């Protein structure tokens, strides 16, 4: 029993360590960027996670209209990235994508710097191939059969490149649950600090307390089940 518990703990730690390493690297990246060009922008989080081209556009925009950025725009949608800059003109559509944001900024008559940047970066058109298929291409096959007396042919089209079945999806679900749990956790790693989200790194203290809480909850469930299975006392003889 104890050996099983330790094995489970070891397994969960092995699953946690890549996340820790990832988070540590991520934190370092964001801090180094915040010391750079667009530290006043408030979107260092998204900039580090998205890419270099994205951050380039946001720096240019911040130089063109830095005052409007700070005043009202970046509050609601700083996590979504650079588009939050223009939310002084189009607040609701900042997250929805490049095309709508761009059109609204055009109608508002933004500066020329802004429009050229957007037409290049956020045009909404297909910018190129984002993924490549390697190996054998699955072309599909057609199955002929009968359904309620009618001859039917069902074509099994090519699949998405990964198997819809298997165990790896559970790994993704687990890691996503860990990440989202850390966000929703009251002592989690990611905080909303009025304008942007800050990652202070996962807290080991919170892990330990979480572990204690989990053990207590499991014990309570165990006690509840044991109590319900043991039956109700109908008679007690005391000596």
């Amino acid at each position, binding site marked *: 029993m104890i050996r099983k518990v330790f094995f489970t703990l070891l397994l969960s730690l092995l699953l946690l360590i890549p996340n820790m390493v990832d988070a540590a690297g991520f934190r370092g990246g964001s801090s180094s960027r915040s010391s750079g060009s667009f530290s006043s922008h408030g979107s260092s989080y998204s900039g580090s996670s998205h890419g270099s081209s994205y951050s380039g556009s946001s720096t240019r925009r911040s130089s063109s209209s830095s005052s409007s950025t700070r005043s009202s725009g970046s509050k609601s949608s700083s996590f979504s990235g650079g588009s939050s800059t223009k939310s002084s003109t189009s607040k609701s559509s900042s997250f929805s994508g490049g095309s709508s944001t761009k059109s609204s900024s055009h109608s508002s008559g933004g500066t020329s710097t802004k429009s050229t940047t957007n037409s290049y970066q956020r045009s909404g058109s297909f910018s190129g191939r984002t993924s490549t298929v390697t190996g054998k291409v699955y072309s599909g096959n057609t199955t002929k059969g009968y359904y309620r007396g009618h001859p039917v042919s069902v074509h099994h089209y090519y699949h998405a490149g990964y198997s819809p079945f298997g165990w790896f999806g559970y790994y993704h679900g687990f890691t996503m649950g860990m990440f989202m749990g850390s966000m929703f956790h009251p002592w989690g790693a990611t905080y909303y600090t009025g304008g942007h989200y800050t990652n202070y790194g996962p807290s080991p203290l919170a892990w330990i307390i979480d572990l204690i809480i989990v053990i207590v909850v499991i014990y309570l469930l165990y006690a509840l089940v044991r109590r319900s299975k*043991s*039956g*109700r006392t*109908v008679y*007690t003889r005391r*000596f």
Partner: protein
Amino acid sequence: MKLKLNEQEVVDGICVFVANQRNCRPEDVDVKEIDAKDNGDIIAKASTHGGQTHKYDNDEILEGIFQFLEEYHSFNREVMYGNIGFTRTEGFFAEIFVNER
């Protein structure tokens, strides 16, 4: 042969079981209470020398009765089987079958 043991003999069996388990005398065992559950389980609570109270279930009580019959009445442990029960009229009892297989 069928033996029907009353409540006092069931308590004796519990005392013998606890004494053998804890290496003490049966007289030092204090049976605090016996509970009858609605699913047929019988739980005894006993302590030694006023120490911590422990719970003993059906199998342990029955094993104590077997040990009691073996050690104090010279029955052969290998040829005994039985069960313990509770009724409101009789209280706690045990039915032990000897050489009935």
